[in-house]
């Protein structure tokens, strides 16, 4: 069988790789002819920068020498341009004669883009593309001035190479930061700083206007703002364009590059293209990794194997001594993405990881890129990183299954390493504070401000405490809200206030919830925190409430409900009692009971009947008693001065006024009040969340009582002289509780955590008391209303079954 005739046009890195694959796999199957316009074979073009910098010689970077081609039986036509392709006759016409082909490979590469500025054709204006350009630049040494247009990868390598040879180099870049396609602003800033320290001048956001010449040779670059930058050589490194001239002339489908399919086949079934000259699914290619992938695919195709080229994410490294830089993947800001940033200002290190879901999708590093390839691997393989998220940024050294130890990572940080990004606090400041006696998180927050703002670094600070103090520091056992998160209730409350977070979605996203939308444990808590802190911005979400609060009635064990209308301060009248009696009969309420909170409970109401019974009760002026809510329940009173011979103040009236002020408010747990008219305490005020005992001189306000699973007597918060002040203090206390307590902590539990003194200080502070009262009133402008009336009027249908299939006619 005759050998298949393959002609290759262009001896570049991609086509060279194809030849390697073909001749390795089937040494005798093909008769290959290689054309190259440059008078040499394939060399490693991306190593031109080290050649320019003097780190390597041309000989070092030759990939295929004459012997290699001879060995593999490849006929070389170097220094010979291809004139045209005759597709019909399947012949390539070169300057020195024609060569027939069965299969043709276009590896024509790219041309550097030359900005058509006036003067671009002057002597001394070059691109940075091939060995000739490199040699021109190598001639620039001490006393020579060079301008490089283009602050991308190639331009900076050119600039650094010439600067290393002693030339005075200016980089002119049109964008706001260097290498904007590969770097973010922070890394771009560090790169600029580092280049400047090498004596390279960097001009950003600089528009070139014209190239000024003298005697046919470049003399200066003139910028839009009129500045002239004198130079002996001007290098344009602003990008490349696929070289498609020959393909176009041959009538192949061409866009920006030569159109190819996944097998690298052009619009002519016998002609293939590979490398920088191709366009695949709208993309053109300049970095070497995808070119090698293409070469592999093309070789396989020619060998009759199945292969398809797939575009992958790319990584970039800058080959400039002293500028250690790495970027990979996608690191643009976008919704749903999260950053992990590490900065060490003293060592000029910046690392940023971009995470989407539980995958790393981008990485930018400056100053220390040792872990770059490891990160790139995580990006390419879409490895789930949830498990190592905490220590991810410290690299592979700190990973490794069970041995992943965030403590040693923290211990290894230099003193200048920034721990608290919000307040710019570095490790040394914190360890100094620990040395000076700050031995717990609160003390660190108070003395250094570290972890006092967004709190994201709390874990790091605690680890620092542990590393520094050893066994003396007992890591607080922070109990997360639930399995959906690692945050504690306290963290979540603080972050909702400070970040700030004003919606459930914001909480799930910003605090890294592990579930889609929480669970029955966390969602009611988050719903409360949001509505308590952002009463105007956040709307209460009934779907995040337990059944009792969603249906405004207490569910009983048989699925029926209990209905308790409000009786202000325990007062009622014949109209109300008649309405209650009528409702009990009308809805067949099996049990009617007097409650401990001085009102009447209708037990055993069917869920479907709730809106109707509410509407009936509403008509008599009765509203929801909120016997079902984490909110104000009752204000129990005694009869006070109106009737009692011992009464010292109008305890009933105060109770009614308090209840009318506070009703409808949501609180972390239920809140019960009591007002007794004298120390005989008939209203049992001293076991309520807030209990007021009237005395001759005024009002004794106690807080933190309970008579449930725990039995607690109130502790005295304040004694005040007037009823108005008693109401103010009560309101301020409830708002303080609303703002600070953990969901489902009764006031006594909360007070035990923060201390009664702290509570008292806040309430005694007149400005703070005013703020608390105003904040409560703002919230009440939304929530002081009867949910029964609202539901009966607008949502009655929700209480009925969606459909009743028992009524469907039998078929």
């Amino acid at each position, binding site marked *: 069988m005759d050998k298949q005739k393959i002609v290759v046009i262009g001896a570049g890195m991609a086509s060279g790789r194809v030849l390697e694959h073909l001749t390795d796999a089937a040494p005798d199957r093909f008769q290959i002819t290689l054309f190259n316009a440059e008078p040499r074979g394939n060399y490693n073009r991306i190593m031109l920068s080290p050649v320019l910098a003097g780190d390597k010689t041309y000989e070092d970077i030759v990939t295929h020498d004459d012997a290699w081609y001879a060995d593999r039986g490849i006929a070389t036509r170097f220094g010979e341009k291809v004139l045209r392709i005759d597709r019909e006759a399947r012949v390539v016409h070169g300057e020195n004669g024609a060569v027939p082909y069965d299969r043709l490979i276009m590896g024509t590469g790219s041309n550097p883009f030359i900005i058509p500025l006036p003067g671009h054709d002057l002597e001394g204006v070059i691109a940075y593309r091939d060995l000739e350009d490199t040699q021109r630049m190598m001639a620039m040494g001490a006393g020579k001035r060079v301008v490089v247009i283009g602050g991308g990868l190639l331009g900076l390598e050119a600039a650094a190479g010439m600067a290393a040879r002693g030339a005075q180099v200016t980089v002119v870049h049109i964008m706001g930061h260097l290498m904007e396609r590969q770097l973010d602003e922070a890394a771009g800033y560090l790169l600029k700083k580092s280049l400047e320290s090498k004596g390279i001048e960097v001009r950003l956001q600089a528009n070139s206007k014209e190239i000024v010449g003298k005697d046919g040779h470049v003399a200066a670059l003139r910028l839009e703002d009129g500045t002239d930058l004198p130079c002996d050589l001007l290098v344009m490194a602003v990008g490349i364009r696929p070289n498609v001239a020959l393909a176009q002339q041959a009538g192949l489908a061409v866009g920006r590059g030569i159109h190819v399919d996944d097998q690298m086949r052009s619009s002519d079934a016998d002609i293939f293209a590979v490398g920088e000259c191709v366009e695949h699914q709208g993309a053109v290619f300049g970095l070497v990794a995808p070119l090698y992938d293409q070469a592999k695919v093309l070789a396989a195709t020619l060998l009759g194997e199945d292969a398809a080229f797939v575009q992958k994410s790319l990584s970039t490294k800058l080959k400039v001594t002293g500028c250690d830089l790495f970027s990979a993947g996608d690191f643009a800001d976008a919704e749903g993405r999260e950053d992990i940033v590490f900065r060490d200002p003293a060592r000029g290190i910046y690392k940023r990881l971009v995470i989407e879901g539980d995958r790393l999708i981008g990485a930018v590093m400056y100053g220390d890129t040792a872990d770059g390839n490891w990160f790139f691997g995580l990006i390419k393989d879409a490895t789930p990183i949830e498990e190592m998220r905490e220590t991810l940024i410290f690299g592979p050294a700190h990973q490794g299954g069970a041995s992943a130890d965030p403590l040693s990572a923290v211990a290894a940080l230099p003193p200048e390493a920034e721990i608290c990004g919000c307040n710019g606090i570095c490790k040394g400041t914190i360890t100094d504070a620990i040395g000076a006696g700050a031995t717990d998180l609160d003390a660190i927050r108070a003395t250094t401000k570290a972890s006092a703002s967004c709190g994201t670094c709390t874990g790091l600070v605690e680890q620092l405490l542990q590393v520094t103090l050893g066994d003396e520091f007992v890591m607080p056992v922070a109990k997360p809200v639930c399995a959906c998160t690692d945050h504690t209730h306290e963290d979540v409350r603080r972050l909702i206030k400070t970040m700030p977070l004003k919606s459930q979605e914001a909480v799930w996203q910003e605090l890294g919830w592990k*579930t*889609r*939308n*929480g*669970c*029955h444990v966390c*969602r*009611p808590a988050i719903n409360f925190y949001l509505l308590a802190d952002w009463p105007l911005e956040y709307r209460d979400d*009934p*779907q*995040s*409430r*337990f*059944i009792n609060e*969603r*249906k405004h009635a207490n*569910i009983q*064990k*048989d*699925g029926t409900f209990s209905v308790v209308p409000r009786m202000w301060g325990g007062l009622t009248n014949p109209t109300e009692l008649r309405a209650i009696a009528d409702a009990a009969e009308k809805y067949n309420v099996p049990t009617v009971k007097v409650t401990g909170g001085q009102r009447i409970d209708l037990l055993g109401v069917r*869920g479907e009947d709730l809106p109707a019974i509410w509407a009936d009760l509403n008509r008599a002026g009765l509203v929801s008693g909120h016997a079902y809510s984490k909110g104000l329940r009752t204000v129990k009173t005694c009869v006070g001065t109106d009737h009692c011979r011992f009464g010292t103040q109008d305890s009933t009236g105060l109770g009614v006024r308090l209840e009318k002020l506070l009703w409808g408010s949501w609180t972390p747990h239920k809140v019960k009040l009591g007002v007794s008219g004298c120390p005989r305490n008939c209203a049992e005020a001293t076991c309520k969340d807030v209990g007021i005992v009237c005395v001759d001189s005024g009002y004794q306000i106690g807080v933190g009582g309970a008579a449930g699973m725990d039995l607690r007597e109130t502790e005295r918060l304040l004694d005040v002289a007037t009823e108005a002040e008693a109401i103010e203090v009560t309101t301020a206390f409830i708002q303080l509780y609303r703002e600070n307590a953990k969901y489902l902590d009764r006031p006594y539990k909360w007070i035990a955590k923060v201390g009664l003194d702290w509570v008292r200080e806040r309430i005694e502070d007149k400005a703070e008391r005013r703020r608390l009262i105003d904040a409560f009133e703002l919230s009440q402008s939304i929530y002081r209303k009867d949910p029964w009336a609202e539901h009966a009027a607008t949502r009655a*249908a*929700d209480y009925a*079954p*969606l*459909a*009743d*299939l*028992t009524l*469907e006619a039998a*078929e």
Partner: protein
Amino acid sequence: MSWIDIGAIDDIPLRGARKLRTHLGCVAVFRTDRDEVFATGGTCPHRGGPLAEGIVHGRAVTCPLHNWVFDLETGQARGEDASIPTYPVRVERGRILIDATLLRRAAA
């Protein structure tokens, strides 16, 4: 299968449920945050809690009585050896259709 229109998807709140009265007893019809609709038995096998009144989170519901959590797709209770029946249901042009053959056959 015989599909019966039982209402509009918007009749069920997002992350909520409604109950459906059938010859088999109460069926709960759920709507998740992503507008997925599921139908399951409406009664918790533990103490008979009304599942249509539970908090819907992800593709799960928590019984309002004692916080048993059921997977809406499979009916399996999490961490318990118990399950609730599930019924085929689909949404077409905003209407919820339930496969009524199961319900009827059991009733016959």
